[in-house]
């Protein structure tokens, strides 16, 4: 009886949960192929080599248009880039600061500084991009439904438009983008970067790697979260089983 009631409650809760989540998936109605991600599932972690290659793609391609305002150079430690390399990477971009005389001067960035933004403000970004605003990429992997698969589909989704469809001036056909016309020129082309670890820089490979990096950037603590979670959930699970027997024992002396 009690089990039945619990089951009913669980079904009700699950129904609500499913209805809530599918509501979020609703939208463009475009289907995104699920890719094989190192970070999916509760045991999944960020693949450091892929994320490092992804950072290289970001730095040499995407950073020309897209900022990542929430990410600091020190965050790169989380994908296994050594500290001295991070110092060098950071120092290659300057940042404005105020010196003792109150003058604005430039100094090299430190690991604690954020990534530099390509444009001073949104207006400047639009002016150089045909009026379209390249969004900040810090959280992009979480800011789209089915984030990683969507990003991969977007970056590999540039094709010839289907017969009969005209693409407006300055726009590009993209199979994954809502409305299929995007203002971003195809950012990736075969061999756009040269990976130091010898991986072949195909469009698919780069799309996969940059997505891994963007997922890392969107939640630098994801690996830690899952690791902690395993311990916490396991502990609570065992505790609950023990509590079940304690409860049974205590209640045993009732009629």
């Amino acid at each position: 009886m009690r089990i039945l009631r619990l089951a009913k409650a669980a079904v009700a809760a699950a129904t609500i949960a499913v209805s809530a989540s599918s509501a979020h998936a609703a939208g463009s109605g475009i289907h995104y192929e699920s890719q094989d991600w190192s970070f999916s599932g509760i045991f999944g972690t960020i693949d450091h080599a892929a994320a490092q290659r992804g950072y290289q793609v970001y730095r040499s391609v995407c950073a020309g248009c897209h900022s990542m305002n929430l990410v600091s150079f020190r965050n790169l430690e989380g994908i296994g880039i050594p500290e001295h390399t991070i110092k060098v990477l950071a120092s290659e971009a300057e940042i404005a600061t105020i010196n003792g005389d109150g003058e604005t001067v430039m100094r090299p960035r430190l690991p604690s500084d954020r990534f530099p933004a390509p444009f001073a403000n949104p207006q400047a970004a639009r002016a150089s991009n045909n009026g379209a605003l390249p969004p900040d990429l810090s959280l992009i992997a979480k800011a789209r439904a089915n984030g990683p698969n969507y990003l991969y589909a977007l970056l590999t989704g540039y094709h010839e438009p289907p017969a009969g469809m005209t693409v407006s001036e300055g726009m590009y056909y993209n199979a994954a983008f809502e409305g299929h016309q995007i203002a971003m020129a195809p950012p990736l082309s075969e061999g756009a970067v040269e990976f130091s670890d010898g991986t072949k820089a195909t469009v698919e490979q780069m799309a996969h790697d940059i997505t891994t990096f963007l997922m890392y950037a969107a939640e630098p603590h994801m690996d830690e979260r899952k690791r902690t979670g395993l311990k916490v959930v396991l502990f609570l699970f065992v505790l609950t089983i023990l509590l079940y027997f304690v409860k049974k024992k205590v209640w045993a002396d009732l009629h």
Partner: protein
Amino acid sequence: MRDVNFGWAIRFVHMNGASFFFIVVYIHIFRGLYYGSYKSPREILWILGVVILLLMMATAFMGYVLPWGQMSFWGAKVITNLFSAIPLVGESVVVWLWGGFSVDNPTLNRFFALHFLLPFVIFGVVFLHIVALHKNGSNNPLGIDTKGPQDSIPFHPYYTVKDYLGLGAFMTIFAAVVFFAPDYMGHPDNYIEANPLQTPPHIVPEWYFLPFYAILRAVPDKLFGVLAMFAAIAVLFILPWLDRSPVRSMRFRPISKWFFWVLAVDAVLLGWCGANAPDDVWMGLQFVVWSRLATIYYFLHFLVIIPYLGLFERPKQPPASIAEAVLGGGTGAAAAAAAKPMEKA
């Protein structure tokens, strides 16, 4: 979130904590509906409970605004704008709520202050809820009054240990969501910074508001939509007087029991409608039509079906006492049990 030590844990526990608070409260409310816990002499207890629900809704809504994502901003815009439907003073009320002429920094500031303040008010009302509970004691699945010590067991150790078990199960599920699927109940758009110039294609509230959102959108007129939405909760306040049946528990109300489950399905249906765009089609009908049907049924349930069944349903005979039901015997066994309390020791 990313720069504070364990900021991720704090954020995800807080965010999902709100959702889980609503999960347990909705279960608690539906259990109260099933076992007739709102009925005399527990009307005050029930009403205080509805007050807590309202306060929780206000708190959760204001909390959702604070991350200042797209859904935060546009949710705040939609909800505060509802007040403009009030005749005569509506527009002024909205400006007063905003602290300006649009949802902006002053709005964020005051929502933060209120989001901090309201939990203390909730705490106060929870205290009153418990005081009211102790006046008449808890209801029970049989929905009958306790008649003496043989009918009840001490809170400690029986309920303390049972609550530990419940807490353990709850925390396990909660932790699993916090650590493994923290964004499951959230909306991706809230990871986009608020932008007053760009309206998201679908503005949806958090899941726990979806049924009310569906009721709001079901009514074509703005003022009446808002009224219907608030009436959906207000009707709970007068429920103790709508239900005239002398029997509390649905266990002994063969017809009402079925209508209870229909209401539960209706509530889920309303949530489903709230989650989808009104013009989209589902099983041959537009969602706006579904939400109208479900809204009509919702009010029909409380305003017609419950009063009618209260008067005309023929309930089964509940047992004379809890001890009798537990011990399973006839009156003889019950009389014997009356002599000693429930515990064997």
